[in-house]
C-alpha cells in the first residue's frame, strides 16, 4: 500500500500546519468548561444531595496544613448535616442554618489535591466541577494556587471560597466575582503589625527584607515596607529569594554587611522555618547594630509550621488570622468541636476553611438557591459575628472579609507543643481597613458573576 494514498500519512505542508495551528488556537480560546444548558446554573443539585469540592494540598510541602483544612471541612459538613455538637453554627449570628444540610439537601463532598501547584490545583478543581458536579470549590494553602483556582471557578461558573491565601492580589488585581476570601491579607498584616513594631522597637529602625519570589511575597513586602516606612523606618534592601531555596545562609550573611537592625522574613512554610533557623544560627538575634538590639520579624505566622523552627520563634513578632487561644464564644466552640474530634487544636487554615464552608451554606440558605449569582449577592456586604474574629463584613466591592487582626509573638515558655504563639494585640478592624481602590489593590475588576449556564 502506497503511503501517499493513506490519508493518515498525508505529507505535512506549511499550509496544513498553519490550518492546524489556527484550529488549535480556536479550541484553546474556547471556554475550558463547556456548561450544560439543561440547568439554570452549572451543577444545579437535582437530587437529595449537594456536593462541595474541597481542594487542598494533600501532597507536597503544605500537606500537613492541607490535612488540617480537610479535617475542618469534614467537621463543617458534619455540623451542617446535623451531626456533632454544631460547633460555630451555635454561635454564628445568622440563624439560617438548621443542621439539615443546605436547603434541605444533605451535604456531601469530594476532595482534590492541589499539590501546592497552580496547574495541579486547577486540574483537580476542574475534575471536581466536571466529573463530580461540585457546586462550590474551596481550600488551598497558597496565593498562587488560590488565584489560579479562583480564575478557573470564574470561567466555569461556580463559587470559590478561598482557603489560606494572604496575597493582596487575591482580592486585588486578581479578584473575581465568583471568588470570596475570609482570610486576611498582606496589607492588613502590615497595618496591624507596624504600630506594635514601632511601640516595641521605636521609629528609628533600618529594615532588610528577604522575600519569597512570588505573588504573596511581593505584596507582603510592599505592604510591610510601606507601613513601617510610614512609622519612620527605613528600608535598607529588598532581596528576592527563590521559592525553592532551602538554605538562606548566603542571603543572611549579607544582612550582616549592611547597617540594617531589623530583618523582615517575607517567607511562609518551609521557607520561613529555614530562613528563620538560618538567621538565628548566624547570631542575628544576639547582635547589636546602630546601638540597638537586632530584631527579626515574621509578618505571617503559621502555628502549624512554626513548630519546625522550634525555639527560634521565641519573642518574634508576626500576625495571624486566628488563634486557638482566643476566648470569644465562636472560637471556644470551634476549638472544642475540633479538639474533641481530633485531639489537638485547629490551625488558622482549619479555622478559615471551616468558616468559609458555613458562610457559603448560610448564603445559600438566605438566597434560597445554589445559583452562584444569588449566593454571591447574599455574601456581598454580609455582616456577621460569632465565627471567631469578632464582627466581620464581606465587602461587596472586592469580596474581602474585614475583621480584627491578631498580632502575635513567639512564646517564651510554651506549656505544650501547640502553645507556640501568644496573642499580644487584637488590632481593631478599623485600623486595617482600606479603600477598594487602594493602589496596592488596584488594577483588577470583579467582573460579572458567572452561573456557568
Amino acid at each position, binding site marked *: 500500500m502506497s503511503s501517499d494514498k493513506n490519508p493518515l500519512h498525508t505529507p505535512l505542508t506549511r499550509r496544513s500546519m498553519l490550518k492546524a495551528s489556527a484550529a488549535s488556537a480556536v479550541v484553546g480560546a474556547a471556554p475550558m468548561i463547556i456548561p450544560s444548558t439543561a440547568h439554570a446554573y452549572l451543577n444545579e443539585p437535582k437530587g437529595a444531595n449537594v456536593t462541595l469540592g474541597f481542594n487542598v494540598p494533600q501532597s507536597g510541602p503544605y500537606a500537613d496544613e492541607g490535612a488540617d483544612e480537610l479535617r475542618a471541612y469534614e467537621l463543617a459538613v458534619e455540623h451542617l448535616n446535623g451531626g456533632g455538637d454544631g460547633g460555630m453554627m451555635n454561635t454564628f449570628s445568622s440563624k439560617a442554618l438548621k443542621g439539615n444540610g443546605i436547603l434541605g439537601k444533605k451535604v456531601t463532598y469530594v476532595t482534590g489535591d492541589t499539590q501546592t501547584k497552580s496547574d495541579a490545583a486547577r486540574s483537580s478543581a476542574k475534575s471536581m466541577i466536571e466529573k463530580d458536579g461540585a457546586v462550590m470549590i474551596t481550600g488551598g494553602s497558597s496565593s498562587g494556587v488560590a488565584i489560579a483556582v479562583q480564575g478557573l471557578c470564574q470561567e466555569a461558573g461556580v463559587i470559590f471560597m478561598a482557603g489560606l491565601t494572604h496575597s493582596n492580589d487575591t482580592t486585588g488585581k486578581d479578584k473575581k466575582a465568583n471568588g470570596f476570601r475570609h482570610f486576611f491579607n498582606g496589607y492588613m498584616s502590615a497595618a496591624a503589625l507596624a504600630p506594635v513594631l514601632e511601640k516595641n522597637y521605636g521609629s528609628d529602625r533600618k529594615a532588610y527584607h528577604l522575600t519569597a519570589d512570588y505573588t504573596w511575597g511581593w505584596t507582603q513586602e510592599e505592604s510591610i515596607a510601606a507601613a513601617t516606612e510610614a512609622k519612620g523606618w527605613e528600608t535598607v534592601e529588598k532581596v528576592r529569594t527563590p521559592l*525553592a531555596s532551602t538554605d538562606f545562609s548566603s542571603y543572611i550573611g549579607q544582612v550582616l*554587611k549592611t547597617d540594617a537592625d531589623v530583618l523582615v522574613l517575607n517567607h511562609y512554610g518551609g521557607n520561613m*522555618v529555614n530562613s528563620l533557623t538560618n538567621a538565628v544560627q548566624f547570631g542575628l538575634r544576639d547582635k547589636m547594630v546602630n546601638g540597638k538590639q537586632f530584631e527579626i520579624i515574621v509578618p505571617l505566622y503559621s502555628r502549624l509550621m512554626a513548630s519546625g523552627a522550634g525555639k527560634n520563634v521565641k519573642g518574634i513578632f508576626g500576625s495571624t488570622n486566628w488563634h486557638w487561644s482566643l476566648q470569644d464564644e465562636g472560637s471556644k466552640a470551634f476549638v472544642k468541636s475540633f479538639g474533641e474530634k481530633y485531639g489537638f487544636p485547629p490551625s488558622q487554615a482549619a479555622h478559615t476553611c471551616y468558616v468559609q464552608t458555613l458562610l457559603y451554606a448560610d448564603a445559600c440558605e438566605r438566597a434560597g438557591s445554589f445559583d452562584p449569582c444569588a449566593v454571591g449577592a447574599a455574601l456581598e456586604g454580609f455582616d456577621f459575628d460569632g465565627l471567631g474574629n469578632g464582627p466581620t463584613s464581606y465587602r461587596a466591592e472586592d469580596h474581602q472579609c474585614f475583621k480584627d487582626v491578631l498580632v502575635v509573638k513567639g512564646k517564651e515558655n510554651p506549656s505544650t507543643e501547640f502553645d507556640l504563639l501568644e496573642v499580644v494585640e487584637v488590632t481593631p478592624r478599623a485600623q486595617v481597613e482600606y479603600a477598594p481602590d487602594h493602589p496596592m489593590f488596584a488594577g483588577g475588576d470583579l467582573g460579572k458573576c458567572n452561573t456557568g449556564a
Partner: protein
Amino acid sequence: MDAVLLQVLNGLDKGSAYALIALGLTLIFGTLGVVNFAHGALFMIGAFCAVTLNKIFEISAITIDPTKTDFLGKPLQVKTPYLEKWFGDFGLAVMDWSVPLAIIISIPIMMLFGYIMERGLIRHFYKRPHADQILVTFGLAIVLQEIIKAFYGANPIQTPAPSAFVGTLDIGVYLGFAQNAITYPYWRLVYFAFACLVIFAVFAFLRFTTFGMVVRAGMADRETVGLLGININKKFTIMFALAACVAGVAGVMYTPINSPNYHMGMDFLVLSFVVVVVGGMGSLPGAVLAGFLLGILESFASMNVVKQFFETIFIPSIDQIVIYLVAVIVLLVRPRGLLGHKGVMED
C-alpha cells in the same frame, strides 16, 4: 573583602553537602555503572535517623498538673522525658547530643539499607539501559519520601545541634579583620570539617587498602579483575552500602542546619547530579571539586551586587540559574567535565 570571604566560607559550607552526595553518586556510578536517582533519598533517610533518635530520646512520662489546663480546659498533661527523669543532667546531655550520637546508629542502618537496596533492587538493573535505572531509582526515591511523610508528616522537624555548638565563631579576628567582620555559625564549620574528614576517609580507603585497590581496579576494568578470580560484584555491593552510608551521615549532620523534611533529598538530588556531571562522570576528585566550586559560585551569585550586575545585562535571578549556566559552559568547553576521563558513559 570580608564580604567575599564570608561568601567563600558559605560556599564551602554549601558545597560540603553537594560534595558528599555527589561523592556517593560517583562511587555508585563508577563501580556499578548505575545512575542512582534514589541517592538524595538516602541523604534524607540519614537525616531522619537523627530525627528518630531525637524522638526516641524524647519519649516521656506523663504527669497531670491540676493547676494548669490544656486547650480544651482539661488538666494539663506535663511530659518529662524518661532520660531526664531517670538520669537527670546526664540524660539531658544525651538528648542535647542526639545529632552526633545519631551518627553511630546511622552507619549500620545506612550500610544495611544500602546493602538491601542493592541486592534487592538495583542489581536487577545492571544490564538495563540507564533510562530504566533512572526510572526505577527515581520511583524508589518517591516511595521512600512518601513513607517518611506518612510517619513524620510534611512539616520540617527541628533537630537542633548540641548547645555547645550554638552561636558563631568570630573567624575574622584570626584573619586580621576587625571584630565581628566575619562571623560564622559553629555547626556549619563543624559540618565543613566533617565533610572534609569523610571525603578524606573515603579517598584513603580507596587508595591505601587492598579492598580499595581491588575496587579501583574493578572500576577501571571489571572484566579483567573478574578473570583474576576476584568476586568483584561482592566488593561493589559493599561500595554501594558505603556510598549509602556517606549520604546518610551527611544527612544526619545536616539536620541542625535546616530542619529536615521528607522532601530534602529531592532538593539536593538535581544539584548533585549537576555536580557529578560538571566534575566528570565517574571521577571522585571531580565530584568533590565540583561540589565545592558550585557551592561557592551559588553563594556569590546570591550577593546583591552580583544579582544587580546580571540584571543590568538582562540576566535576572542569576542565583537561581548560576549552577546550570556554569554546567552548560563547562560541558561546552570540556564535554567530559572538569576531571572526567575518556570512555566513561561514552559508547
